[in-house]
């Protein structure tokens, strides 16, 4: 990732990516390799490589503004630790990252001036990447150069071609939004309704997923196909559970009961240990983390479902999905105790009614059987 000096590359934002790459001396063969890796990264079939190559050649270099709000920088860390560094850096070298206050050298008003300049120059065309949630309870909770997150987002969003909330905080509110949500944190989509939004949730998102989405936009200039939660289907189309290599154990009913039992050692399904794989949509099971080394389930830990809204309040990371989040036994006990009281009362009332009916019995004689009333 290059650190950009303010506005340094703004002038070249009309270049195509192909031209930019060739200028950097990237051979066609290297470019094809890059395209193959890109297709793989975007979860596109290898047959798409020629189309990608063609699209990338003529793709315009967009200006990108990156805003960080209530966040932990984990998403940026994830991105900068992307294992496919060379390939991504190609992309980032060819995009114009005009503002990223964590990464850029300039600070304070200078940085803000760069942002404003980039906005003005590329109004209606730049990509806005956001990480972190936005506090609305009191804007003072998070400000940058005296500008509240809310104001900065609304202001910057106006001229954006599309917004990419990166990380669960920006996409769905994430941890700041978790109960009791003291800052009144909300997601980008909660605030902005009139711009295309591509959510890239995860805590953090898989690096290649971030770059994959950027690349998609860069390559095709269109929004990828999104699911109901605004996530690109290419990466979030299938649940962890569906793509999990431990799925056969689930199907066979073989579960690890604890983290150190025989089942855990044998790599059995982690459902009982609270795995949220069945309700979590992400690419971890195939793309994996750390150079494709592994992903949490492979490491023996249940999925937390970090790419899902409310994952923090989902009722316990180690509580199986089929278990209610409240204390059912306690509820049942209270209800049972109350029922014994109420039922006894009603039962005794019934008894009394029956007794009363019997005591009011009017003796029936044959005269009563005669039809005349």
């Amino acid at each position, binding site marked *: 990732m290059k650190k950009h000096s303010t506005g340094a590359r703004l002038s070249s934002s009309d270049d195509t990516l192909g031209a930019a790459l060739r200028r950097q001396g990237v051979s066609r063969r290297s470019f094809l390799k890059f395209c193959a890796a890109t297709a793989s990264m975007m979860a596109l079939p290898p047959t798409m490589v020629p189309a990608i190559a063609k699209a990338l050649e003529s793709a315009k270099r967009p200006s990108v503004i990156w805003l960080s709000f209530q966040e932990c920088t984990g998403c940026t860390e994830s991105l900068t630790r992307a294992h496919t560094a060379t390939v991504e850096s190609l992309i980032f070298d060819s995009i114009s990252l005009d503002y990223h206050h964590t990464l850029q050298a300039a600070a304070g008003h200078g940085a803000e001036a760069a942002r404003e300049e980039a906005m003005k120059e590329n109004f209606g065309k730049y990509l806005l990447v956001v990480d972190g949630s936005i506090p609305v309870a009191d804007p003072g909770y998070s400000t940058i150069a005296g500008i509240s997150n809310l104001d900065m987002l609304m202001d910057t969003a106006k001229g954006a071609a599309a917004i990419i909330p990166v990380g669960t905080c920006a996409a769905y509110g994430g941890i700041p939004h978790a109960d009791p949500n003291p800052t009144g944190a909300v997601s980008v989509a909660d605030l902005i309704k009139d711009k295309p939004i591509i959510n890239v949730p995860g805590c953090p998102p898989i690096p290649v997923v971030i770059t994959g989405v950027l690349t998609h936009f860069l390559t095709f200039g269109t929004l990828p196909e999104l699911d109901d939660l605004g996530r690109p289907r290419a990466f979030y189309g299938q649940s962890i559970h569906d793509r999990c290599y431990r799925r056969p154990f689930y199907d066979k009913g073989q579960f690890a009961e604890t983290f150190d039992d025989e089942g855990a050692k044998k790599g059995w399904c982690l459902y009982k240990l609270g795995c949220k794989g069945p309700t979590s949509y992400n690419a971890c099971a195939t793309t994996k983390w750390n150079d494709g080394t592994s992903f949490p389930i492979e490491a023996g830990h249940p999925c937390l479902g970090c790419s899902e809204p409310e994952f923090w309040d989902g009722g316990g990371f180690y509580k199986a999905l089929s278990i209610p989040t409240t204390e059912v036994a306690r509820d049942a006990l209270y209800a049972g105790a109350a029922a014994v009281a109420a039922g006894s009362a009603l039962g005794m009332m019934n008894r009394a009614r029956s007794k009363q009916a019997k005591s009011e019995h009017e003796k*029936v004689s044959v005269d009563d059987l005669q039809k005349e009333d």
Partner: protein
Amino acid sequence: MSTKLEQAVHALKEQIDAPVASFLSSCVHCGMCAQACLFHTETGDPKYTPILKVEPLRRVWQQEYTFWGRMKKMFGLAKPITDEFLAEWEELVYDSCTMCGRCSMVCPVGNDITYMIRKTREGMAVSGHVPDGLVGATTRAVTIGSPMGVKFVALEAQIRHVEKDYGYKVPVDVEGADYLCMLSSMEIMNFPEYIGAIAKIFDHADVSWTLSSKAFEATNSGIQIGVSDIAAELVQRIVSEAERLKVKCVISPECGHAYTAIRWEGPNLAGKKFGFKVRHILEVLDELRQEGRLKTEGMKDNRLTYHDPCQIGRRGGVLEQPRNLINMVASDFVEMPDAGKMNWCCGAGGGVSTNERADEIRLKSFQRKKEQLEAVQAETLVSACSNCRIHIEDGLEAYHMDIPVISLTETLAEHLVDKE
């Protein structure tokens, strides 16, 4: 004085107890009881589904004894219990139910539907929606002493005939006798041979017994029509006589519901445990057999089968005794399909035979018995209930079948070895 409708609801309210509430809570509308009821199997009409017949009781239970039913009633959401509704149910409760108890045996959740029909009739009886035939019989039972209007003078005349024909003394009002023998009017009027048979057997076995001039009628119309007060009054007549004559045991005759009335409902109607035993004549005879006091000779060699009267078998518990006794006198005894506790009713019990209006359906439902008899190609049918006998004879005639229907007690008497 409240209206008949109010009285009916009140009566039903009195009848509801934990078993009823449990049964009504359990019904899943599976329809299996319909397949156990000959009024449904022989007509195919779903309205005869047994559990539906207790609908009046169900509504009262729901509206009076369940929290939600009471809420519904309060907000006017409950189905009302109207005179028209009860009128509609009269036929279902009386004409097309013999209280045979077969449905109670098949219900998968264990509902004793018959138990509830009996209770439902308590409400129906006072509502005024009750067959005239039953009202007449009940009135005669209370005022004259027998549903058929038989007075002691008529019995006396029959006793004289019997004593003459059989040559045995028939004791009446003998204080201190071991057994007080009860009779049904049907036996007095239609089958006086029963009295002769009893006299012969008890003489043969040296049993000390007596009839009572004040209480000879064992049948109890109060039970059939469903008025416990009247049933209690009728039972009380027997209890008083049994106590006056200081007998050890009262014998219920060859009559189904009489056994239920005196044996099982009697003490509960009278409100006390009896100081004497109550036994069906077949139980007494089987006891004598076990004690070796019955010596028989000769065997009936035609194909003979036994019809279990519902109230004696399924609802009474007298199932083995008749078979023990038949085996003493019959060499070709065959059991009909479903014999024993699952036997099919003749179709005339529970007051149906007293209800002329029900004649058509009664004969229609007889097809069931006909098929049972045909299945074993019975040549003789033996039973232990006069009501069953009369109706079966009627049914056989209607279906042009020629099978003699005989009394088990009488048959046994015929085969006794003459006393030296």
